[in-house]
């Protein structure tokens, strides 16, 4: 059953013209993550590789292609977590870096801290020699078009129709170590400095070798209120399968705080699931030389790797 990697390209409602490329991107990311794992790489290497590819792909709301905040600027959040030690790294509201997930990993590995925010995160990136990229290079025509279409004073929560969510990945390597990574540009028209669930440990991701790993996507504020990732793992600690635990927690989030979203989850044995209560979620999983993927509820297409 090991190794395994599962990735998502965001829950929500994907505009028709992007469906094909969004589905192709997650398959490609899962393949890359899987090839890291089969060549002996760690779960952490695999999730960072997969999420980096999604960040570099302009159709997703992370890295290049991020949505714009109320001022038309890009601010990104990312989180990584290593299930062996519970070590974790995160950046919030960071600007001018191409791959926030790699920066989050550096926070984990090179500092005594877990999360760096805003200008402090950029300052750390410079100190580590991470190249600063111009904001323009992160902004796609599509992102600018959607931002320009907004009425002045648009409500950031109500203007998420056509939103493409956060990206993320979870993996178990051949040694049985788990990891997760999540990356996002946040929500369209968010206030400057808004931090969503993604960089908040237990909300935007969690990994523990003893229980499982989760990366979620969806309405960030709702995910935070129920600490979605940790909640799913609590259910798994009580003996629920990844699928049962995900459905329980997503139902609870919908009922208690009226939020929709989706998750990818693995347990230490390699049992995996991709669940969502939004209309769609692009996801792909690689295990035992098979690639699984889907977009709508109930879909699980397979092809050999």
């Amino acid at each position: 059953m090991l190794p395994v990697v599962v990735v998502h390209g965001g829950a929500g409602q994907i505009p028709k013209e992007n469906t094909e490329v969004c589905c192709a991107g997650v398959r490609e990311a899962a393949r890359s993550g899987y090839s890291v794992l089969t060549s002996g790489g760690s779960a952490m290497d695999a999730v960072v590789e997969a999420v980096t590819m999604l960040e570099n792909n302009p159709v997703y709301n992370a890295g290049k292609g991020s949505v714009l905040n109320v001022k038309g600027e890009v601010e990104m959040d990312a989180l990584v977590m290593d299930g062996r030690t519970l070590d974790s790294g995160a950046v919030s509201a960071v600007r001018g870096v191409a791959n926030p997930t790699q920066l989050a990993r550096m926070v984990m590995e090179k500092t005594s801290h877990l999360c760096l925010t805003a200008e402090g995160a950029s300052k750390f990136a410079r100190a580590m020699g991470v190249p600063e990229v111009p904001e323009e290079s992160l902004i796609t025509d599509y992102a600018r078009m959607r931002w320009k279409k907004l009425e002045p004073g648009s409500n950031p929560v109500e203007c998420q129709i056509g939103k493409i969510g956060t990206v993320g990945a979870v993996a178990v390597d051949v040694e049985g170590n788990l990891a997760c990574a999540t990356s996002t540009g946040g929500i369209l028209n968010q206030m400057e400095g808004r931090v969503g669930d993604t960089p908040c440990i237990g909300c935007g991701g969690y990994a523990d070798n003893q229980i499982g790993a989760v990366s979620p996507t969806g309405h960030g504020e709702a995910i935070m209120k129920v600490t979605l990732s940790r909640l799913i793992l609590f259910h798994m600690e009580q003996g629920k399968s990844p699928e049962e635990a995900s459905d329980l927690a997503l139902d609870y989030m919908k009922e208690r705080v009226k939020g929709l979203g989706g998750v990818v989850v693995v347990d230490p044995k390699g049992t995996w699931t991709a669940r969502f209560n939004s209309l769609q979620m692009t996801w792909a999983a690689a295990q035992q030389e098979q690639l699984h993927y889907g977009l709508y509820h109930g879909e699980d297409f397979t092809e050999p790797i």
Partner: protein
Amino acid sequence: MKPVIVVHGGAWAIPDTLAEASVAGVKAAALAGSEVLKRGGRALDAVEAAVRMMEDDLVFDAGHGAVLNTDGEVELDAIIMEGETLAAGAVSSVRNIGNPVSLARAVMEKTDHVMLTGRGANLFAESIGVPTLPTDALVTEEERKEWEHRYKRYTVGVKELFNSQWGHDTVGAVALDSFGNVACATSTGGIRNKMVGRVGDSPVIGSGGYADNKTGAVSCTGHGESILKVTLARLILFHMDQGRTASEAAKSSLQFMRKRVQGCGGAIVVSPKGDWSATFTTERMAWAAVDENVLCYGLNPKEELKESLK
């Protein structure tokens, strides 16, 4: 429902020189919060009042009295959460705000978001008329001297043993009101000589605090990075979901944190039935609680002193 409030002034090796002022500070804050509850106020108002009082108290590392980061600046984190709707507000790395807990509450009540960070949080403060204070207004002379003396030299990219060396800490409060609502609030200046932009556990929902009318409210303190790794507040409430008492849940979660990530800390907890606890694995934690007409407080392990308020 009998109202209860519990507050803490941080879990760490509080030196004798600060012991008396710390205990006096948490007692005053618990009484301030209790007054709100006695007048029929909500748990949310009570925890905000108690935390504001400690933010204004120079002895605590939150608001006035905060520690300095590597650049000699003040950056503050805070969260507030109410258990009825799970609504929450937080600010991280906000500069030079006297009462970050009230700004966190404004994020909860006046925006669609849960958390604002850095300059964005300061811009929001300005937009709603919250004054930004000069650094000198928040930093004590002792803190400035300590920072200049011991910490000025620092290299980025070198791991330091913050876990055993950090000084000062977070303040927080949890409350249960007469309507059966619980709430929590936590506020901090972080750890001395932290990197610019470092966010600890305090503003992170489920780590620095959590409140749910169905299970209870928690505010945490201690080594932030360790608290984050185990999402301590949510972990304690998960144990309470499984039928543990406030005290058992806090103890087993803090023990887990020590065992799994070698971190020490403390937590205050209140359940919707009024079961409460103040627990820590550090050398000391200043805490106080008002339950019925008794003020309980302590500083050292297993210490629980009582004063009648009649």
